[in-house]
């Protein structure tokens, strides 16, 4: 397992992205899957930083780790910010996605893109810590051909 600890600040989005890009390359994810995973992790990390830490007036770290097996790449974001379950945020509805931009709400898009971007997304609260877990299957291309 590889891991990296960064401060819960917007400046950390870049090292978090680099970590995901490197892990994706190591397991041979294709360009699209790698982009979508980076996007998913970036969106949730942004929410942790902006809402979990900054808006709550707290400071803390984010630990990002990667676990690889034959089947998948798993990326975990762990933080000790306030309880924040992305799956409990108001789910964006299809009707909202069809609305003209002039009438759009600002919220919800990031969590939508995060959940859509990976094969499985889950959230766990362990003690005082939030764990956001992203799974992407490997060898997607060959599976699609069956």
């Amino acid at each position, binding site marked *: 397992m590889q891991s990296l600890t960064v401060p819960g600040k*917007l*400046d950390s*989005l*870049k090292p978090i*992205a680099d970590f995901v890009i490197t892990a994706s390359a190591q397991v041979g994810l294709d*360009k*699209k899957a790698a*982009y*979508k995973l*980076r*996007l998913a992790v*970036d*969106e949730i990390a*942004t929410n942790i*930083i*902006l809402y979990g830490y900054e808006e709550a007036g707290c400071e803390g770290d984010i630990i990002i780790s990667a676990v690889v097996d034959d089947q998948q790449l798993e990326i975990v974001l762990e933080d000790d910010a306030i309880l924040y379950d992305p799956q409990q945020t108001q789910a964006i509805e299809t009707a909202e*996605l*069809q*609305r*003209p*931009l*002039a009438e*759009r709400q*600002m919220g919800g*898009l*990031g969590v*939508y*893109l995060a959940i*859509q971007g990976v094969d499985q997304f889950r959230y766990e609260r362990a003690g005082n810590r939030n764990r956001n877990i992203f799974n992407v299957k490997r060898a997607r291309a060959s599976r699609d051909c069956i």
Partner: protein
Amino acid sequence: MSFSATTQINGKTAIISIAGELDAASAPAFRQEIEQAAAANPEHLVLEMSELEYMASAGLRVLIFAKQKMGVNVDVYVVAAQEMVLETLEKTGFDQSVIIADRYDTAVTA
């Protein structure tokens, strides 16, 4: 590659070229360019994206801001967006509210 944005005003058209990576850390710089362009009261807003390698939802929120700030009558063109940026725009339905084009001149005369 870090984010950069440059604005050019040609009469009633504001052209903003954005490049690099647009995430929550760089979105305020993009928003600032939009505000600057809005001050010129353009009729067309052209976002040239050929060098934009990545866009998160923070970038989408700036597009919402642009549309709401400039008014519904301002046409927003997204020009030469890369494949994955385009996919994000389509998945979130933003392609219904902006004009997607490979080139700005052909988009206007088409």
